[in-house]
């Protein structure tokens, strides 16, 4: 490779890497703004990735994407049920969903595709075009921004995250709003996962999300729980990822240092800016009558 970095190629690569982060981060914002912590983004992405490929093989790529999105909505609904009705700690529910998703997707991959060629890989013969998902990610960012800041529904969702009790006093019931937030979160995360397997890579392998769900969570925090902020953070993280992929071996600093940047940056943002999460983040249905 020449000393001059091909900027256009780098830009394209960074967008491709940032796209799943953007979609998953939107999921994080929808959930956390309505007051539900969602560290299950990683697991829901994995489920979306697996289901997308499996259903894509059975029914065709577009239908597969729809099934993956539906599966994400179902897992989101499960997280909602667990945290709100069954009063499970949000972190505990998220950890359990992540463990379940990782093991279940690998279990199913090995049960169904053990004899596949090559074994233990689920392939899609015609991957979906990457551009679709990039356009979708940008459009969804704008849509979530408009939803949260320009509509009554968005105002109410933000209100539930800040103070469920006062929202209830204003005559608005919290349950349905949180349902919208958390199920949308599952839908976005599963779309991000489906992009990885059905479009970017074209196949499903063990643990293929490999921490992207947590980077998306980091982007939510760095973007201070706003769609546009998270969008910029995801793009920056995608750029680091692209740099790291492009310049492996040619860079003075080790690639691990670049890979650690998003995490260190997130800690710094959490510390220095005192990024304020929604006030009642992590509460149950009836907790916190402030």
């Amino acid at each position, binding site marked *: 490779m020449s000393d001059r970095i091909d900027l256009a190629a780098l830009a394209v690569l960074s967008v491709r890497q940032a796209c799943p982060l953007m979609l998953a981060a939107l999921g994080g914002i929808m959930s956390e703004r309505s007051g539900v912590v969602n560290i299950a983004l990683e697991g829901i992405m994995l489920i979306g990735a697996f289901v997308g490929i499996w259903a894509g093989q059975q029914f065709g790529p577009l239908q597969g994407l729809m099934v993956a999105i539906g599966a994400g909505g179902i897992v989101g609904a499960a997280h909602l049920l*667990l945290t709100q009705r069954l009063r499970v700690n949000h972190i505990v529910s998220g950890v359990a969903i992540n*463990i379940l998703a990782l093991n279940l997707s690998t279990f199913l991959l090995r049960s169904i595709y053990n004899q596949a060629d090559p074994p233990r890989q689920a392939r899609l013969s015609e991957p979906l075009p990457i551009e679709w998902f990039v356009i979708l990610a940008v459009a969804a960012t704008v849509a979530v921004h408009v939803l949260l800041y320009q509509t009554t529904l968005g105002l109410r969702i933000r209100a539930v995250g800040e103070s469920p009790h006062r929202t209830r006093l204003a005559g608005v019931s919290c349950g349905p709003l949180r349902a919208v937030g958390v199920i949308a979160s599952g839908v976005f995360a599963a779309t991000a996962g489906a992009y990885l397997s059905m479009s970017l890579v074209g196949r499903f392998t063990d643990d293929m999300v490999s921490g992207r769900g947590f980077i998306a969570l980091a982007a939510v925090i760095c973007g201070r729980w706003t769609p546009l902020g998270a969008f910029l953070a995801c793009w920056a993280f995608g750029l680091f990822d692209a740099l790291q992929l492009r310049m492996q071996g040619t860079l003075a600093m080790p690639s691990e240092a670049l890979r650690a940047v998003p995490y260190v940056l997130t*800690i710094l943002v959490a510390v220095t800016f*005192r990024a304020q999460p929604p006030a009642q983040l992590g509460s149950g249905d009836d907790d916190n009558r402030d």
Partner: protein
Amino acid sequence: MKSLLVRCAMSRQAVGLFMAIIVAAGIIAATGSNAAEALSAMFYGAIGDIPSAVSESFKSHRLVLPNEPLRLIAKATPLILSGLAVAVALRAGLFNIGAEGQILVGAFAAATVGAAWPGTPAILHLPACLVAGMLAGASWAAIAGALKAWRGAHEVIVTIMLNYVAIQLTHYMVNGPARDPSSLAPATRLIQPGARLWALEGGTNFSAGIVLAVAAAVAVWHLFARLRIGFEIRAVGENPEAARMAAIPVARTMIVAMAISGALAGLAGAVEVLGVHRRYLDAFSPGYGFESIAVAFLGNLHPAGIIASACLFGGIAGGAVHMEAFTSTPRQIAGIVQAVVILAVAVRWNAAGRADRNARQ
């Protein structure tokens, strides 16, 4: 009298485990395998053929022990330590999701000290390695504790991020400056003989680490039952405001709790290096840090409960490997069981929430 046995059998832990086994059986059956066959293979893989070992012992007049129970204890050892780590932090109201990262840095520090200073007598070298592992884990976790206490940064976020920083850091070290050039896989140099923890030959991975793990469990019990700092940790966990009123230094207590938690996780990593692998292997942890959350919850945050649940998960993990080898069922069923156990234990089935809601309407 409602006997202890009945209460144990009806406990939410037992019910959760029962549900998890039913879910696992359902999933195995749904993929077209024989669930009974798979689960019994798992059971024998976990505890071995005890009856024939007993009859063999009587016949040969010496103790014959199958390998499986030893393997179970070997797998439970790091889980006991990291489960204790999660429990100590949770008692202070802090969610340490970062045990994984603390295990990695603890293991790496122990391997580094263990490979240095050839010729050091074991009486000095082994404790030095253990202390190095604990210090590394403690300082890694104390970062999250300090940022929480001083700046209000959420410990869940910081520990998750620190996990990935630890993964990248150890990955860099073991592939770069600390790599043993003669090793094919990325690994550090072998530790000196004086740094080795006693271990049984024969591939069971059974080591003296279990003694350390049980000692740590007793120490944690002592901490919360007898020591002032343990009481302060519990007070801060129950109600930080009330603790502040009672002149308990809340910030310092949080940092200390995270440091103790990290030290336990670091010790788990050190024991794996000194007793099992004898060097730091890249990505050696199969997710102990996350399993430890399940262990802590299933053990109801009590040291004795944590030992029991770590043994249970150790057995499930060992049994699952056996099951994978002898039936067509992949070993990931063990992780599915864990996840269901966590949820079943964490769910509050009682109607308190509903009554509360009705009262307000």
